[in-house]
């Protein structure tokens, strides 16, 4: 479950400098998130599709990952067409859907999918450790970066401990149901994970002390921008700027 399927690969996108990817994703997400014009949103979505295609990610897995956000979007579709005021467009029983409401819901749908498509294509195609190093290079606070590294490192160890406990419950005939026994068992499971992690924290701390730890953490990372990275960065910045201008001129006109 916590494997990084998309990080394996050797497409053009996979080989891009991770710092470039982070900067691009960030600017793209911000610009698209504040945009409202359909021209802009549709171009953004088209761009998202292009980038995922460039990253040659397995389509099925990609669609599977789009499911969670779209569930929330579908939930919104049940409300927004009826609650946004405007010209009546259709009706379901006593409820009247408006033109504006449908447009608004459509806008959100396109925005969400465009942002997440680019996020998946650029960020999930990088291993999380590389991303951490790139964040460090981009001058993210050191403490946060190290917290990120340690959390990520030990998620795997603790997840293994967790699966062992779950398996131990399974082989003793446990079946989750809606009852107190189940809730109590899960509470014990959570408690046990916390207790074990606490002990592990102590042991890791000791191991670090034995290697001269005095509160200073280091990261080794060297990235070097290649020409393709610089060109891609400039290209994408121009595209994002274009989207921004397109959106902004609307504001200027209206």
């Amino acid at each position, binding site marked *: 479950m916590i494997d990084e399927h998309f990080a394996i690969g050797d497409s053009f996108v996979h080989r891009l400098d991770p710092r470039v990817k982070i900067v691009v994703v960030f600017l793209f997400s911000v610009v698209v998130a504040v945009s409202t014009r359909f021209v802009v949103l549709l171009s953004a979505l088209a761009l998202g599709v292009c980038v995922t295609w460039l990253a040659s990610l397995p389509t099925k897995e990609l669609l599977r990952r789009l499911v969670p956000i779209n569930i929330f979007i579908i939930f919104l579709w049940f409300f927004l067409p009826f609650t946004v005021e405007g010209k009546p467009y259709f009706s379901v029983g006593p409820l009247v859907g408006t033109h504006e409401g449908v447009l608004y819901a459509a806008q959100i749908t396109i925005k969400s999918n465009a942002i997440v498509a680019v996020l998946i294509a650029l960020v999930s195609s990088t291993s999380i450790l590389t991303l951490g190093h790139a964040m460090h290079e981009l001058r993210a606070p050191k403490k946060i970066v190290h917290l990120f590294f340690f959390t990520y490192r030990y998620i795997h160890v603790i997840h293994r401990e967790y699966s062992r406990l779950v398996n131990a*419950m399974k082989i003793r005939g446990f079946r989750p149901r809606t009852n107190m*026994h189940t809730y109590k068992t899960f509470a014990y499971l959570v408690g046990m994970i916390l207790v074990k992690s606490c002990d592990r924290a102590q042991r890791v701390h000791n191991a670090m002390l034995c290697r001269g730890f005095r509160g200073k953490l280091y990261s080794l990372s060297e990235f070097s921008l290649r020409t393709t990275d610089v060109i891609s960065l400039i290209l994408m910045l121009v595209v994002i700027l274009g989207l921004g201008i397109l959106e902004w001129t609307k504001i200027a006109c209206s």
Partner: protein
Amino acid sequence: MDKNSLLINLEDICFAYPGRAPSLDKLNLQFHQGDRMGLIGPNGSGKTTLLHIIMGLIKPSSGRIEIFGGHVEQEKDFRMVRQKIGFLFQDADDQLFSPTVLEDVTFGPLNLGKSQDEAKAIARRTLESLGLAGFEDRITYKLSGGEKRLVSLATVMAMEPEVLLLDEPSTGLDETTEKRLVEILKSVDFSYILVSHNIDLLIETTDYIGYMISGDISVDDDSIPHTHRHMHKHGKYAHKHDLSLPDKKS
């Protein structure tokens, strides 16, 4: 069920963890009522994986599993299996999750639909039979390594299984506790499969030894001594054990 009937029958089982080379590769295994089988093999040869397959904790990508004469495939088939086969995990210290020993040992029986009182009675009985009387209210987390291992065994035995699978039950145990474990194994009349890197232990507690290498088992007695420096011991004890078979209580 009659003696020497086929309890576990695996045919051409293949399994690979995602993104890994196959851990089990067309593995075949026949395990009969009354068998006490040892299993040895290098790290990563798939011993633990095999036991997990039998318990239905992971599903093979191909192959056929028959247990107690029935074909098992679905999660609900395995629920029945798990009542009859007890499994002691590698790292058995990780098997306990309840605050007290008594709660942990009653967990299995409660899941099998026993009442609180019945479950407690079973738990007390099991603990006593393993020499753990008086441990009921101890906090599991604070037990010593050896005690945890024995309590884990109690939690499995409290399910009253017919077969035991033991994955390296003696690693990290001192000799006294290991001996106690051996005594327990020798005294119970279960059929069992015991995985260990310690050939002396296997020789002492099992009738025959399978050698697992890169996802397959060979049960060829002659091939084992070459892999271990205690070969003279093996020769000596193996026969003694073979002879002692008819003495078993079962």
